[in-house]
């Protein structure tokens, strides 16, 4: 085949450009550590990488939601614990007051102590968490329970916020997985409504008033009533404990998912360093060889040998 001078130059330039293109491609992969630098490097892989990134991001959000919910539930659990302690003290006082040998003055002392417990219980019922009323449901910037007092300042009634405090506050802790993280105020303190048998405040008010009136007939039944109240709290406490465990397992699961997503993303997107280095060296050697041979061939001409 005839070889014209333009052919030699054109072919050499084409080869050099191709090699240089590959060398700079691998060089760039090495410096970014990424196999897919733009969608056309692997169109399918680029789409997958985007979906994994979304998975990682949503996973982070679910972890944040779950941790937020956990914080709230663990705080609630502490409050339930102290309410149980409070009710246990009320129980002891009720047992003490139920003793026939006590005088009216003795019972008045116990009444004062019970009244203090009642004030404490109201304040627990209006506990704030992050500046919001913990048992206030959606209406968490108003007191969950308000009290009515008599002329001497004694609490005569405790009423739940009429706007409602039992709404379930939820956290999304997985795709499509929403879990309630609060306990409704009335469910906990007045499950059958204000003034009913199960009203925790009512139990203490009755005990206190029984002591003030020195009326053992009123005091006696409160021992069982307070025990029922303790059981009522313990039911919510164990439910909450189970929910906290569930959140912990979910957080572990989310942690594993995060690792899987990150691994998958890396598999799709990251360059295999060893392979890339090898390819880079190989292309560079080829480029240098093309340069060296090209530089020699392109200079050769009959003209150089003519006198």
């Amino acid at each position: 085949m005839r070889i014209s001078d333009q052919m030699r130059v054109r072919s050499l330039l084409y080869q050099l450009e191709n090699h240089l293109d590959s060398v700079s491609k691998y060089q760039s992969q090495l410096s970014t550590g990424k196999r897919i630098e733009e969608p056309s490097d692997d169109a399918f892989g680029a789409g997958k990488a985007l979906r994994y990134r979304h998975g990682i991001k949503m996973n982070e959000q679910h972890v944040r939601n779950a941790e937020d919910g956990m914080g709230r539930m663990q705080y609630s659990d502490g409050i339930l614990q102290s309410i149980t302690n409070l009710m246990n003290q009320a129980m002891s006082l009720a047992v003490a007051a139920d003793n026939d040998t006590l005088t009216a003055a003795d019972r008045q002392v116990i009444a004062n102590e019970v009244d203090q417990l009642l004030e404490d219980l109201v304040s627990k019922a209006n506990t704030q968490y992050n500046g919001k009323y913990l048992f206030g449901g959606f209406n968490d910037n108003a007191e969950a329970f308000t009290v009515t007092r008599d002329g001497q300042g004694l609490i005569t009634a405790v009423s739940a916020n009429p706007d409602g405090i039992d709404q379930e506050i939820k956290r999304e802790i997985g795709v499509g997985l929403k879990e309630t993280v609060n306990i409704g105020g009335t469910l906990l303190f007045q499950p059958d409504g204000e003034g009913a048998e199960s009203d925790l405040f009512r139990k203490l008010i009755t005990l206190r008033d029984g002591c003030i009136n020195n009326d053992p007939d009123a005091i006696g039944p409160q021992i069982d009533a307070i025990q029922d109240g303790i059981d009522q709290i313990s039911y919510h406490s164990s439910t909450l404990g189970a929910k906290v465990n569930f959140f912990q397992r979910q957080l572990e699961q989310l942690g594993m998912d995060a690792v899987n997503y990150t691994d998958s993303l890396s598999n799709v997107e990251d360059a295999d360093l060893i392979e890339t280095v090898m390819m880079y060296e190989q292309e560079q050697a080829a480029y240098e060889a093309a340069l060296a041979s090209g530089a020699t061939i392109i200079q050769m001409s009959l003209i150089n040998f003519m006198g």
Partner: protein
Amino acid sequence: MNNIFSLLEVGKRAVQTNRLQMQVIGHNIANADTEGYSRQRANQKAASAMDMPGLGQAGTGVMIQEITRARDILLDRQVRNEKSALGRWEGQDDLLNSIQNIFTEPSELGFGNVLDEFWSAWGDIANDPEDIGGRSVLRQRAVMLCQNLNDYDSDIKMLQENANAEVISLKNNLNQYAAQIADLNKKIQIAENSGQNANDLRDQRDLLLDNLSEIIKVKISDNNDGTVNIYLGGEIFIQGGEYRTLTTKLSSINGVVIDELVWDGTYNNVVVDGGRLKGIMQFRDVDAIDIRNRLDDFADTLVNNVNGLHQGGYGLNGSMGISFFRSDTTGAGGIEVNPNILNDLNNIAAGGSEAPGDNENALAIAALADAKLMNGGTQTLNEHYAATVSEVGARKESSGLYREQSEAVHLQMVNDRSAVSGVSLDEEMADLIKFQQSFNAAAILVSTANELMTTIINLGK
């Protein structure tokens, strides 16, 4: 004429022939790097012989028969076919590359991340619906999301406009080439009418035909008078010394104003099925439109779903029925956060009721992140966006591959043609020495004839 003078004549012819050969070689060497130049050859032959009665015929030396150029019409056709393919893929590939660069994916900086940040902001609001800080973060992210989509739309639109401007400028190039080719047709016809080979004129015309093929796929037919006819999709474009003018006509595709290539006079569309024009029009009329439609679908779905939930929810101030995104604009170019939200963060409807701690609506909007809202309920918004990026990547990937293939084939074709038509300096040098030797020998012949005459003249003294 059988005497010493005929010997002198043979010598003179040989000197002239070899000098002309060296002139042709000189022309080749001078044009070794001229684009479109075909090497020329002076074909020499023995001059007509003289009858020598009783002896047969005696030669009368050498003469140049004609000067031809080395050219292969079949290779020209292959080169031009490949130029049309290469032009098409180069044009489309460059533009698709630009569109791909607009999407800075996959990375931490792309729109996918902006979208995820938007969902996360709703998630954070659900965790603390009364926190004004979280609402402020959501507002910033929503503004950025809209800005990104607006930018994508206007950037792609600008690429379309650039492509359209190039269609007009390529149309002007075609008209110029047509005028030049028609003019060369005339000159070649006149020159060859008088029996000459119009080598250099033909080279010029061939180069123009190459350039023409790069812009648009043409059919070329050679006429007996040395002229060529050019057809575009079956319609005559250039006929001998005459040509038709191309012009553009305003039209629109999906609301985008474009210029269509039409024949002047009839205003019928010109068939474009190859060349740079094809690639650019394919991008302008198909690729860019497809991608913009996908982004518009995405934006409209996002707006409708977020607004639908948002309007049913309550703001911190008890407001209801307010849309989160403006509801009077459409598409990726129009998406915008409702000024009512921008001006008052309390209008963000996180609640399903007026209760301030109600997070139901924020939870519902955050859950849109993984709701299958697109493509007939089979894709989430994020999946749709990822598929759009894949779509852009796949188009760029295939145009890039076609381009690389065309480049390789084109180089092969051009080299094949160059093997026939290109100048080899080695070859010219060797020929130069050959003809120089012949020239020297012929000069000695003349000198010998001269000596012979001197000898004869001296005989008479």
